């Protein structure tokens, strides 16, 4: 068991014993990674902040249900991903957070859901153009560095599905990046002309 896992276990035990300070410590230990995942999936800073808030409220509420069969961080990621999915569904229903439904690598403008991200590197646009399923798999695997098995647990899908999503997600991502890069060059060329 890693130090972090051992420390998580200790803090969880304290929280369940009634120590709310331990919950604050638990939150401090994980809030940045949860925020990173939520921001990458939602591509909207305010929505990500809302999601982080919701995630930790859920964690507090459901902590007794955490069995310890997987790492706490994996369980936490699962809640985070589900919370983000819920937000995307709500946003789609209320049309407050435009979200690309399709992944058309040729459409460089399909990632216009990044309005509230301060910096808009091509990578963020390319990520935003992936479907949420692919995006979550790539984010957890390649940005958060989770082993594929942990990603599978976090996404509650078979390992093979995760492998496929990660592979196809990377491929689409690279294609988007190529198109974005191409459109930049094209735009520069037009401007120069």
């Amino acid at each position: 068991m890693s130090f972090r896992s051992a420390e998580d276990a200790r803090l969880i035990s304290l929280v369940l014993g009634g120590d709310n300070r331990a919950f604050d410590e638990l939150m401090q230990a994980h809030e940045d990674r949860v925020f990173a995942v939520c921001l990458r999936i939602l591509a909207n800073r305010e929505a990500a902040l809302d999601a982080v808030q919701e995630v930790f409220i859920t964690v507090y509420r459901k902590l007794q249900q955490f069995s310890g069969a997987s790492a706490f961080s994996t369980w936490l990621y699962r809640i985070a991903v589900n919370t983000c999915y819920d937000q995307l569904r709500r946003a789609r229903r209320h049309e407050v957070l435009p979200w690309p439904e399709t992944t058309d690598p040729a459409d460089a403008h399909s990632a216009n859901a990044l309005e509230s991200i301060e910096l808009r590197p091509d990578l963020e646009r390319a990520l935003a153009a992936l479907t949420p399923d692919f995006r979550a798999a790539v984010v957890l695997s390649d940005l958060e560095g989770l082993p594929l098995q942990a990603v599978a647990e976090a996404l509650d899908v078979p390992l093979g599905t995760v492998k496929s999503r990660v592979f196809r997600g990377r491929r689409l991502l690279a294609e988007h990046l190529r198109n974005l890069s191409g459109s930049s060059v094209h735009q520069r060329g037009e401007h120069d002309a």
Partner: protein
Amino acid sequence: MMHEHDTELIAAIAAGDMSREEQAAAEASLASCKVCRTDLQLQREALEALAAAPPVMMNDLERAAVRRQVWTAVTSDATRPDSLPRAPWFQRWIPAMAAAAALLVVVGVGSVLVGDSAETDLAVEATTAPTENLRATADEEMAEAPSAGALDDVAEAAPTPMAALDSPGSVVVEYGSISSEGLQDVALSLGASLEAAEADGYVSPSDLQSPSPEPALACAEVALENGPISAIGRASVEGDGVEIYRINDSVYVYAAVDCSLSATFE
């Protein structure tokens, strides 16, 4: 010879998860498969871009706001085990905020002045809170949260949020929109020294979509680290707009406009 769609092998090559010899042999096996070579190149490009992604994190203001709202929700749940989390405090006070333009926080310190003499009123003038991205979560959104209604067991185990502070100390002001002078008054009333003061609000009327075009909200956050109080009870609020709670060794006082507070520190 690999199969044309052996994506696991391609992913492994791209990730460099094999020895140099294995890598060379695997790449050589792609020589006759154009699709595989293209896939390998795309995997590598994606991984390279992802590896170069800058880290993202909350800024201090966002972090404080998230913690505050989580804490408000969970401590509310501790006393209301059968209820859903409440909306953020400031959202509940929007009607009161619309009518007011000035902040009046009156803090009485019970541990210093007990009983009828326990309340020392200090007028604290507010400055306008600057804009900060902090979107209030609507009640209905919270109700739709996947977690809604699931806390019942934990709530019983949760302790009261305001436990005893250990020793006298100082007042540390993190984010607030009350004046430094006002904060100094608060500090003095608590028999503590003011370490830092930032007239740096975290919620603005525009964030709350207040109907008033003028600044209709000012909020103060006063953290009393190791304050000269043994415990803090729930504040009794006159009017809308003040809430006190505790996170670790800090006591947070939030004040909106047109309100006064009599807080009893037990």
